């Protein structure tokens, strides 16, 4: 393979991995804390992308969209959780999947009513337009921005989870929610915070993805399936798992499309199958999930 082409595809993989990561971390930690499988996480991603479109349509800059849309999407996601999703918190994963898949359909239809069926675009800020030279390859600046943002957020989340009191509370809750409660910790409150942060990051992913992939009804479904695979491969409830899983699936998706264009998903399922054969609970799960089952 031509080395320049290879470098370009490596950067594409990284860029896609970062988007997957922004969605996977929330899905994974929310599951780790409350055993809640929230597929409507993708709806928050799509909603933020549409909100970003509206902000730029109304004359706001990309940066304003990046600032406002994730906050609004996160608030709406949290409201949705307390108004509806929480009802099946104790009812097991099947009920959660059924309800949140219902929310996916409703969300898509509502956005379709408001915005119509046609894909929308969000343009990138002027100074991120065009390409720049990376080791001899002309590569879109905006995609480099996504990679940088993703890496920065991984660092911020590492510090937040491993070095702060809130992070210790989250890890304690993922390890053993009941024991955390016996120490006077209100896990429901910790969870609300984690849910809001997770939805915020998914919203950020939606805004950042909008200029690259466009904004269209159903943009959530294609990505949430990959995100689920990321979490299964990486392992539940841990930052390391979300990072590693995102990288593996980001690379498998990009290179699958190049090497086996007719069977693009093949590479992803191959990675998933190998991971599940050798590490049934994923590569780097939180301790509570590290035994099979």
């Amino acid at each position, binding site marked *: 393979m031509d080395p320049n082409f290879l470098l370009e595809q490596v950067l594409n993989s990284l860029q896609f991995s970062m988007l997957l990561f922004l969605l996977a971390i929330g899905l994974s930690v929310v599951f780790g804390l409350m055993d809640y499988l929230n597929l409507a996480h993708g709806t928050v991603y799509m909603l933020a992308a549409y909100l970003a479109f509206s902000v730029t349509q109304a004359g706001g800059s990309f940066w304003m969209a990046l600032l406002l849309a994730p906050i609004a999407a996160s608030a709406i996601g949290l409201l949705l959780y307390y108004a509806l999703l929480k009802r099946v918190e104790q009812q097991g994963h099947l009920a959660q999947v059924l309800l949140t898949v219902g929310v996916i359909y409703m969300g898509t239809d509502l956005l379709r009513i408001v915005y119509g069926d046609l894909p929308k675009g969000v343009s990138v800020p002027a100074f991120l337009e065009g390409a720049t030279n990376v080791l001899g390859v002309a590569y879109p600046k905006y995609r480099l921005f996504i990679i940088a943002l993703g890496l920065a957020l991984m660092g911020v989340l590492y510090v937040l989870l491993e070095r702060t*009191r809130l992070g*210790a509370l989250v890890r304690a809750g*993922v390890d053993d929610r009941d024991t955390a409660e016996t120490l006077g910790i*209100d896990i429901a409150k910790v969870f609300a915070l984690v849910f809001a942060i997770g939805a915020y990051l998914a919203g950020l992913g939606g805004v950042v993805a909008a200029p690259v992939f466009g904004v269209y009804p159903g943009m959530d479904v294609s990505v949430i399936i990959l995100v689920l695979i990321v979490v299964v491969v990486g392992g539940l409830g841990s930052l390391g798992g979300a990072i590693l899983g995102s990288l593996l699936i980001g690379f498998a998706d990009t290179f699958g499309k190049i090497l086996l264009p007719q069977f693009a998903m093949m590479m992803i399922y191959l990675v998933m199958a190998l991971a599940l054969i050798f590490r049934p609970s994923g590569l780097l799960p939180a301790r509570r999930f590290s035994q099979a089952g």
Partner: protein
Amino acid sequence: MSDVLLKVEDIQTYLGDSHIIQGVSFEARAGEVVALLGRNGAGKTTTLRSIMRMAPPRSGAVTFDGRDLRGLRTYEVARAGVAFVQETRAIFPSLSVEENLRIAVRGKSDWSVERVFDDFPHLAARRRNGGAQLSGGEQQMLAIARALVASPRMILLDEPSEGLAPIIVEQIAALLLKLKAAGMTMLLVEQNFALATEIADRAVVLGKGRVRWTGACEDLKGADDVRRTWLGV
């Protein structure tokens, strides 16, 4: 010594469909150490979990310092001043020893994290280690220390000596006697009869989910039939 701190009145607790606690009543006065004794499966752990509302009773009442605990969540019971040292010790494996303590700190305790490390050099040496790397005895010490830093008014201890070497059991006994001398109210579940009667003032004997005997530990030592039937010692 006469104020009742914890009052358990006719609680009935189910686990799934099984009626495990069938009308248990007892009380602990401030500063008193009460032993809760009984054979395997008698319902000792379930009684403690009922008080913490981890297994909320279907009926009956638990009152702590005059406050009705019905309707509270577990974290609210803890904040009301009840600490629970579980049978499993339940150290968080993903947290360091120090983090295990720090997330439990509440109010102005006689026991700061620094005092814990001064008094338990074994824990101090491992303060940055993961909770999963401790020995059984160290886990038990950490579990008790984690209860102490929360400024509890009462501690529920579930079989603190279980599975530990005799020398460690002695250290734990010494610690509990020190806490007792400082006026800490405790409810002590134990299978180690000698240890329980050494530390406790009074004993409540459970059998098959009911209270079978209550009285001073001194009297229990002489009550051979109670011991044979309900304790097997």
